């Protein structure tokens, strides 16, 4: 029997800023489902933003799926593979990008997890709790996609 890949689902954003909380809500729903279904070897995490200590957090995982809100011109959501970024200064360095975290993990720990980022389309970003209705629809699609991939051998890009 194949070994189960250690997986981390990590949503980030500020749930006090409407659709910026899409990533946090994604992992909240997934955590409930994983617990209910008894699915092993999946770690859940959530924060306002990624930072340097996340390089340590992902270093013992086989697969990491980051989840964030986006304003990109897309219909609902998409997933892409995260490659380590060029060692380039980021615009805002109190927070870092998934690619930066991967690069730091590679450099510090010589570990190379498969890392993905789910981008979920959001629309409103004011000082308020709760997602917009359209964002919820996009979230549900992303959640169903992730569940199907987890049940199907955790091959996220297939």
């Amino acid at each position, binding site marked *: 029997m194949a070994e189960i890949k250690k997986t981390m689902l990590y949503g980030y*954003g*500020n*749930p*006090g*800023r409407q*659709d*910026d909380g899409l990533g*946090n809500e994604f992992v909240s729903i997934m955590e409930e489902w994983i617990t209910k279904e008894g699915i092993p070897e999946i770690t859940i995490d*959530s*924060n*306002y*933003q990624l*930072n*340097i*200590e996340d*390089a*340590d957090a992902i270093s013992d995982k086989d697969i990491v799926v980051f989840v*964030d*809100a*986006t*304003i*990109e011109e897309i219909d609902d959501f998409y997933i892409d593979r995260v490659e380590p970024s*060029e*060692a*380039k*200064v*980021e*615009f*805002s*360095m*109190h*927070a870092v990008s998934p690619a*930066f975290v991967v*690069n*730091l993990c590679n*450099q*510090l720990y010589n570990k190379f997890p498969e890392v993905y980022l789910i*981008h979920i389309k*959001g629309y409103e*970003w004011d*000082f308020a709790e709760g997602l917009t209705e359209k964002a919820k629809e996009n979230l549900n699609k992303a959640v169903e996609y992730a569940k199907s991939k987890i049940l199907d051998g955790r091959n996220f890009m297939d």
Partner: protein
Amino acid sequence: MSKKITIEPVTRVEGHGKVTIKFDDAGNVEQSRLHIVEFRGFERFVQGRPYWEAPVLVQRLCGICPVSHHLAAAKALDVIVGAGTGNGLTPTGEKMRRLMHYGQFFQSHVLHFFHLVSPDLLFGVDGDPAIRNVIGVAMKHKDLAVMGVMMRKFGQEIIAATAGKKIHGTGAIPGGINKHLSIAERDSFLLGADPLNIDKMIEWAQAALDFLKDYQKKNTDFIDNFSKYDSNYLSLVRKDGALDLYHGVLRAVDANGKKVLNDVDYQEYDKYISEEVRSWSYMKFPYIIDQGKEKGWYRVGPLARLNTADFIPTPLAQKEFEIYKAYTNGKPNNMCMHNHWARLIECLHAAEMIKVLLNDPDLLSGELVTKGTKTNRGVGLIEAPRGTLFHHYEINENDQITKANLIVSTTNNNEPMNRSVNNVAKSYMNGKDTITEGMMNAVEVAIRAYDPCLSCATHALGKMPLEVTLLDANDNLIDRKRS
């Protein structure tokens, strides 16, 4: 022909900022300004909300320093619920909040030094920008980078244990705290496997400080003279003059160390501090009223705190404080880059305080909340890692917030950051035919010394509002671009 340079975005500070530098016909810097887009709509947003929501609501302001806003709001509401200020809380209430606060200080100062500052020190202000960042540090100085990552992780775990959770922590409530520390949590911080235990954190904080002191000895001219200028300095201090990052009276000293605000009660801060509006900046310019707008501006943050405090109440940090003070013969330190030295002394102090608190049984049991007679106005001040943070609330008979006024640390440092930018622009760029990336980074190094946080909580992918304004020599608008 006169020219104008715009540096934006200011990298490695939170949110978005823009620097404009205008040159005269002789190629000398005529004027330089740091523009920061600060969103103050939050103060209107909280109006009408029940007051007890404020400590959680304010965390929507910023995902970088939510703990500081959480605690400053809770301190203001302590006054409103009649729990008084500072030591009006139960021992457990105050000590749990302090533990949360020192955890925040520790992780924030560590992040700033290892992630934002060490690349400039290790590779040089004009070093190759491709490696002048924490990835470069990780490649060439792995031990230092690992130290930074694990210290930051330790501080974050202290926050999670005291605030209850990583996001929108609920630990501090009006009049106290809502949880004790468990024995398991305490033991994990005291006795955790290396490196995640407090003794290792103290050892590493000392090592980081030793690294900085050694660097200063080898690069004295740069560290001492880079954007050096006199100012007033403001912070909270304990009533006996000790450094106190959580609570105290408001003290300001001038460039000679003379007290210009003499340990006043911050509930009346608006008798002493006002904010000036300038047409070219979104961010206000605070000043000490008695000193006037021209002379009353001040610096806050690590450099200011070690200028206002008389001593540090933990032994290792006090020893370092004595060395630090001796360097300027006891006079206020006016060297911008010595912010980093002061910051690492505070980091060591925070680690020492965490150890003291972890060994205090009051964290494990005892009353959590103080109750009293409600009032309709409360002011909470706290020393955030970046400097003094003001929260002021007023409520009506229905317990709704009717007024909120926040003066954040970065706003307090608005004038000083502008002064630093101007100093560095002149010393690096005057009369130069070519402006290099290294020169522009020097300007950013000056800004980063203050560790500004530009209140940018929404960071969704692709959403990074920027505004570039181009003006000619007569300040006529040429172009404006938004991303």
